[in-house]
Structures are given as C-alpha cells and as structure tokens.
C-alpha cells in the first residue's frame, strides 16, 4: 500500500476514534447509570438517555450571566475541541492514527489540561460563590494528581524508551509479559486512581450530587444552560471514555489495529468498545460500593497514588 492510502486509512481511523469517543462516551455514561440502577433494584433510564438529554439541550435557550465575558461561551467549545483532538491522535482503535508520530503521552495530559483550566476560569466568570468554590477545588485536586500522573508516565515509558503512546502500545503488544511486571502493575494502579480523580468520579467527586457544598466539578458548570451545557456534558463523557480507552490499551492492547487496512481498523473499533464497556462496568459497580471522600482526605488518596507510581519506577530500576 502506498503512503497515500496509509494516510487515508489513518485519517479514517482517527475520525472513527473521535466519533467512537463522542458517541460512545454518552452511551458509556448511560450504561454506568443503568448498572447503578440495577444494583439499586431499579430499572433506571434507558442506556441512550444521555443522548436524548443532549439532543434536548441543543433545543433549549442559551443563557449568559450578566457579569460573564467571552471566556464563558468559549470554555465548553475548547473543552470538546481539545478532547476531540486528543481522541484523534491517541492509539485507541489503531496504533497509527493521524499525527501519531507526535502522539505523546505528556502532550495528551497537557491537552486535557487546557480544557479543565478554561472550565475552571469559566466557573469564576459568573462571579458567584459556587463557581469560585468549584474552580478552587478542581484545580487543587488537579495539582495534587499531577505528580502521580507524570511519574506514572515515566514508569510506563520505560519499556518503550519513549513517551510516544503508539510506541508504548506497540512495545506492550510485542512483549505481552511486560504487563504482569510489578513496574507496570503499580503504574497502572496509580493511573487508575488518577483517571478517577481527573474525570471527577467517586470517591473523588460525586457527579450526581445536589448539595453544592459537596460539589467539585458540578459547581463550576452550575451556570451553563442549553447548547453550552450539552457541550460540557459531551466533553466530560468524552474525557472519561478517552482516559479509559488509553488505560485499557495500556493494560490489554490486543485487538488494536497494527496494520493500515480498514478491516483491522474495524476490528480495533469493536474491541475498543468491548474493552471500555467492561472497564466502565467495573467502575460503575465499584462506585456503588464507595462513598465520596471528604475533600481534605483527597491529598492522602493522591499521595498514595504517587507512592504507587514511584514504586513502579523504582521496581523497574531494581528488577532490571
């Protein structure tokens, strides 16, 4: 196959990744709510309910607080844009999406940070107490999760000698036993805790809470209505799905397309959906058994994740 068709397939794969993350994200949220409902003894909303909610939100009115500036309408679009770009370049369906040479784990982390930072600013834009509270807590949690995240990337990059995500996934495919090493296991454990913290799930933050004083992420988006709220909802669902997709491809990358033909990409898509669904289900079941941690207990949790990541790096050096 010549380079032209390679690029075409790569672009198709990237587009399918973005669509899968966007659509699949909402379905994942619906699935997680359904699992929770079943465990609570209820029927629960249909799995596609988040999509109906988003469709309805686009038909509602847009509102803007009187003190808000251009940051307020910009933040939701930037959130979805950065997560979409991240979804396009990370190896989810294939190890060769568009721009995969520049698909760096470090760049992924900072790309997602753009969205959260702008959302934190938008929370303060309305000039209310809730927005400031949400922003303050969200950036503090983000700051405490950073050390664990970057040391995890350090540990995971050791096997491939590069922080390029496709390279790490390909190295894992080439050496499946490397997943069972203590280095990898510690690092993946830390990564899971950080993913829970970054996407605002229990026990770090309760996405379904009604009490403003217990909110972290919800408090930042309290002012958003209509299409802006639709973008924020989709953006948050996409972020969770993307992070879970990266996680599953670091734990069990089998099924991901390594060759540039459309059939392999299709297989990769199906396996991605299946893997993320399994992890999402497990996360949903875990959430039923967990209560939200008090805000000032979170540093202990994130410090624990950091220690796990550090153990991952150290065990990699020792075992060598």
């Amino acid at each position, binding site marked *: 196959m010549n380079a032209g068709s390679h690029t075409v397939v790569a672009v198709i794969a990237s587009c399918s990744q973005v669509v899968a993350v966007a659509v699949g994200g909402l379905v994942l949220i619906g699935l997680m709510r359904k699992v929770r409902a079943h465990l609570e003894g209820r*029927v629960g909303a249909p799995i596609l309910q988040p999509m109906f*909610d988003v469709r309805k939100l686009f038909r509602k009115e847009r509102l803007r607080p009187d003190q808000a500036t251009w940051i307020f309408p910009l933040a939701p679009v930037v959130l979805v844009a950065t997560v979409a770009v991240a979804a396009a370049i990370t190896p989810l369906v294939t190890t060769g999406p568009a721009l995969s040479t520049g698909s760096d784990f470090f760049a992924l982390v900072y790309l997602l940070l753009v969205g959260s930072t702008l959302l934190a600013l938008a929370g303060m834009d309305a000039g209310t107490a809730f927005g400031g509270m949400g922003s303050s807590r969200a950036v503090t949690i983000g700051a405490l999760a950073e050390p664990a995240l970057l040391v995890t990337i350090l540990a995971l990059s050791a096997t491939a000698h590069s922080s390029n995500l496709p390279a790490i996934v390909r190295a894992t495919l080439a050496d499946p036993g490397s997943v069972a090493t203590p280095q990898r296991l510690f690092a993946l454990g830390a990564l899971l805790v950080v993913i829970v913290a970054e996407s605002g799930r229990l026990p770090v933050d309760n996405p379904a809470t009604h009490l403003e004083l217990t909110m972290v992420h919800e408090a930042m988006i309290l002012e958003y209505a209509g299409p802006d709220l639709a973008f924020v909802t989709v953006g948050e669902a996409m972020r969770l799905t993307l992070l879970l997709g990266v996680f599953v491809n670091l734990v069990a990358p089998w099924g991901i397309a390594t060759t540039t033909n459309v059939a392999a990409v299709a297989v990769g898509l199906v396996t991605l959906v299946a893997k993320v669904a399994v992890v999402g289900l497990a996360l949903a079941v875990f959430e039923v058994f967990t209560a939200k941690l008090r805000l000032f207990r979170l540093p202990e949790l994130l410090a624990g994740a950091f220690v796990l990541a550090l153990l991952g790096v150290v065990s990699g050096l020792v075992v060598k």
Partner: protein
Amino acid sequence: MSAQNLWRSLWRVRRVTEALAPDADATAGPEELIGSLQLRHVDAGSCNGCELEIASAFGPVYDAERFGARLVASPRHADGLLVTGPVTRNMAVPLVKTLEATPHPRIVIAVGDCACDCGVFRGGYGVVGSVGDVVPVDASIPGCPPDPTAIIDALRGITRR
C-alpha cells in the same frame, strides 16, 4: 455496612420496581421535552409531605427515571420547576428568580394541594398565595400528599414515555 453485606443484600433484593400504565389525560408539555425532562425541585413553603412522595417517586419502587425524568441541582440545567407547598412570603422572590434562571422552553409543575390552591394553609399570615398566583403553572398534581403514581403520570405526560 460492609461491602460484603451490601453486596449480599443487593443480590437478594434484585428489582422492586412496579410496572405502571400510562395515563391518557395527563397534560402535555412543550415538544422539545419529549423523552428527556430535568426538573429542579423548589420547596416554596411546604410541610415536606410532598417531598417524601417525590422522593418515593424517584426511588426504586416507582422509579420515575425510567421515563426520562431526573432531578437536577441547578435551574440552569433544568427544564422546569417542581414546586411544592404554598408560596410563603420569604420564598416568593426566590421562586420567581429560580424560574427566571431556567432556560426556555420551561414548565412549572405544582405538586400537592398546597401548591395548587394553598390547601390547608389558605389565608395564613405567612402565605402569599398558591404557586399559580406567583408564577404561571403548566401542570398540577392535586393531593395531600399526591400519590407517587400521580406524580409519575404527570411526568410521563410531558416525556410521553
């Protein structure tokens, strides 16, 4: 309760939700809200009897969520208000402000006799009037307190599920 005990009781209970037939004469709402309805509950001065029934309506037995309805924290995220109680003097302005904070298309559902026509509190010195006297009401659910099935009928009328 330990995780083990919790898991055991969850496994034992399975599903408790009852099947419910739809009510043909329920009030319809705006067509944008078919299939998806988020409501912000406002207690304008109630005795909390209606709140218990609303909680039960969204609980495992009656499960209003399966028909597309959900309670949300911010009126900006909501399609309407679920108002209980007669409107007291202190809650008149907040109720109006809450409705103004809700984006169009929006509805107001008055739950309980107090919300519909002040119920037993009619003429009280702290009461301004019924919900309809302060904000325009789109659907009413009479009863003191109304049965959860009546609440669900009203919600299903709007979501058409």
